[in-house]
């Protein structure tokens, strides 16, 4: 089986700068922030909030590719979102689920308590059952590369369940500070305002 870091490293080489990447809390945010330091990342999406945020963003900006880097524990907390994605069917949305089968948390030396996916739950089957036809499971870098390239080139929604090692034994060296939620908001919204010609942050009078 492959590691989260190996897949994120591969993704960092594949994803164009104008693709918006949203990351769930924990190591998806921590690792991605080290690998791809750029203003088109939205970090720290808490339990149950990663794919739903990506859905809202993809509907608001239908001409912009959006990738959600979600995880099994995060997604299963709000699993109904897959039904909403299936019905809304945004063509520009790709959900990548780092499925390690446990509630890892960060900086742990042994796997956490199991998620439902370590038992009988198959997220690819769930996604397909929700009407997301482009759903798959990958277990190595080559298959992941192929699926990401396909997702970037073809209409979605796409759902990639990545079966990864239970523990993050490898990872990037921490050289950069991942922006906090407010700082990240201004960076990300500022980029969208500048490139999409929409007003997000308003007049700024709220600060006094």
């Amino acid at each position: 089986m492959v590691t989260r870091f190996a897949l994120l490293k591969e993704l960092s080489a594949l994803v164009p700068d104008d693709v918006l990447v949203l990351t769930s809390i924990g190591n998806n945010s921590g690792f991605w922030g080290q690998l791809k330091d750029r203003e088109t990342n939205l970090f720290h999406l808490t339990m149950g909030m990663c794919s739903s945020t990506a859905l809202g963003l993809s509907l608001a900006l239908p001409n912009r590719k959006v990738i959600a880097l979600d995880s099994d524990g995060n997604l299963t907390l709000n699993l109904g979102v897959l039904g909403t994605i299936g019905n809304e069917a945004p063509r520009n949305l790709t959900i990548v689920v780092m499925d390690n089968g446990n509630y890892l948390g960060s900086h742990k030396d042994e796997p956490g308590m199991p998620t439902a996916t370590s038992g009988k739950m198959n997220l690819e089957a769930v996604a397909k059952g929700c009407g997301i036809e482009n759903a798959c499971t990958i277990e190595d870098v080559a298959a992941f590369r192929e699926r990401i390239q396909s997702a970037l080139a073809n209409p979605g929604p796409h759902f990639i369940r990545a079966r990864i090692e239970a523990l993050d034994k490898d990872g990037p060296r921490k050289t950069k500070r991942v922006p906090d939620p407010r700082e990240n908001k201004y960076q990300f919204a500022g980029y969208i305002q500048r490139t999409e010609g929409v007003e997000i942050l308003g007049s700024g009078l709220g600060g006094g």
Partner: protein
Amino acid sequence: MKPEKAQLVVNGLKEAGVDFAAGVPDAQFIEVYKMLAEDRDIRYVGTANEAEAVGVGFGAWFGGKKPALILATSGLLVATYHLARINLLHEVPVLVVIPYRGDIGDPRWLGLYRKTTEPGLNAMDIPYRVVSRPADVVRSIKECNESARAWLKPVAVLLNEEALW
């Protein structure tokens, strides 16, 4: 709910510039949801639960939309963690419109929500206005949304009594 009162809510959202809405249908507010689902100016996304709706609205804001969440009083409880998070950590504006069950004038006694709605909003530091008169619905929705966007935080409108029933 009478259709003319539901229309006031939709008119208020339009006056406020709201162009995106998410939520889970509530029996007392069903006419509003139906109107939103058919409206051409407001993109309505029906979600599986209200916490999901918070994420969808939050994401839509980053895409330049002016989002509103249409939440039942029970749904506010479901949404609480994500709503608190976008208010206190991210500081992102979303208008929250709530048919206020359990307040004075509600034909059914739903005291649970009287105990949870306003205290819950206060605990999350989400400002709100309680609206009782139909004549105040449009103006209040507009003003609450203006405040949300200026302050970069969610603001709620609670519609009760004769404003609804």
